[in-house]
């Protein structure tokens, strides 16, 4: 599974939504509130065995930024 698909799958699970697409962002996705955001960060850390800094977590405001961040972290 490629990175994008894996992240989409994690997002679906965290947000408890069946449809999460690559254009999802905090603005257009109601479930992506501050609480779910932290759950998402925690799940990403577990899934990819990485550590995210608070500043990085704050910057992951949409799907493409999440991917861009993970590409720097995941070898």
């Amino acid at each position, binding site marked *: 599974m490629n990175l994008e698909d894996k992240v989409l799958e994690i997002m679906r699970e965290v947000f408890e939504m069946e449809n999460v697409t690559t254009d999802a962002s905090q603005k257009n996705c109601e479930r992506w509130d501050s*609480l779910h955001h932290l759950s998402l960060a925690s799940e990403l850390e577990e899934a990819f065995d990485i550590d995210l800094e608070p500043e990085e977590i704050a910057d992951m405001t949409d799907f493409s930024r999440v991917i861009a961040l993970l590409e720097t972290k995941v070898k």
Partner: protein
Amino acid sequence: MTTFVFRNQTVEAFFGYDGMTYSGYDDISMVPGEVDRYIWFYQVPVNADSAQLAQEIESYSSKLDIVLSAADASKPFVVFSLVNLFPMRLTGDETAVQQAVTAFNDHIAALAASWPNVKWVDFSEFTARYDADTLVNWKYYLMSQTLLNPKLARDFQSWWQRIEGELALQRKKCLILDLDNTLWGGVLGEDGVDGIKLGGDYPGKAFSYWQRSLLQLAQNGVILAVCSKNNEPDVEEAWQHNPFMVLKREHFSALRINWQDKATNIREIASELNIGLDSMVFVDDNPTERELIKQVLPQVEVPDFPAKPYELMPFFKQLVEKYFRIYAVTSEDRAKTEQYRANAMRQAEQSHFADLESYLYSLDMQLDIIPADEHNLPRIAQMTQKTNQFNLTTRRYTEADVQQRLDQGWRVFCMSVRDRFGDSGITATIFLEPTDDTTVNIDTLLLSCRILGKGIEEAFIKTVFNLLRLDGYRHITADYLPTAKNGQTADFYDRMGMTLEATDEAGAKHYSMALSDMFEIKNYYNIRVL
């Protein structure tokens, strides 16, 4: 089900969002009435000023008291104990925070003892599994006010699910044990009565601890049974003559000591004790036997058996927590092993009588019909939670639910049953809702399967009908609601002479009957109405 959580930290990741509503942080100003359940889950905040922190913790007790008196007392209220997740002491003799935590935990134990709707949950059982660095994640705490590491959310959910089962009094009923290398070390047929490893030094000592622990489990209402490939006379001899034997014949409610396959034996035990296969746990050291049961009887729980005798105590703890622990045990639960054994004796007796009637006479049955009161209320609620087979509507009620219905004018009776073989205790109940001046609806009617087979259900309901008639009631309505387990009651009301009014597509049946004459009841029941 909707739950309202009082909390002082972010706990959404642990309890989830579905059906959950959360208070503001440390906010007790709003106590909603329209919920099904309350949870109090506070955590110890972090504060280097220990005197101030201790004071804050002390305030939780009075806050909880305020919330409790404002909350709907008919709704369950679950209180988590406090755990200091990040203990920090500036001097070695500093004890104020620890004392405040202990005082709060003592306070909630006292509340649980005095409020029927309050149950307390020992949160330290969960936290004790982790080291300090795993429990607290400072990054997430500072971003979102949740000291407990959000990465433990999944572990927490599976632990909490189990605790919820305990609170709902759900557990397995019967533990089936093998003998050789399971209850003692070695093989009886080869090592002999005095050669098996039991008592004395290791490894015999490990089996002694294990047997004593199992005895405690039996005294808490878990039914023990034996399923072993052995010569029964050898086992009898070991029970009688090995001085270290703790568990003996009288502790087991059913025995299958033979060379038949164990799946057949376990099926027979289930029907002899009249309990479902899904209420059974099978413990055997032999992986082949375990595999057979897993394959043939997938409803039976089959845990792996420890390879070394010194692992038996942790194995016992795991058995208890996974299958047998419930929030509280009633005296009926404790007496259960004895009752099942008495049942086995009654069955043996039955075969000596030519006909059922003379057998029933010989039992000298005493039925006491008792209106619900504060003493029998916990047992009545418990029966509605646990009874599956002889249960016409399978409505589950808490103590508070029953109390609420009594307050609304419902009539609730229970029945205590004994005969010359023993006392079965309170084993039946009926809930009657007056729907107008002369009509009563049977909301709930159930009997424990332990007392079935003696016509007691008929004597019970006819006595209740007679009582209702004397009180001026002239009509009865009743429902049968089918479940996967209550098929044996599908035609009960037909047999009692009620008229089937309607059957809906789900199979629910609605009955009515006029109370015109008094019912005659067989005179082999000695019935007292208390």
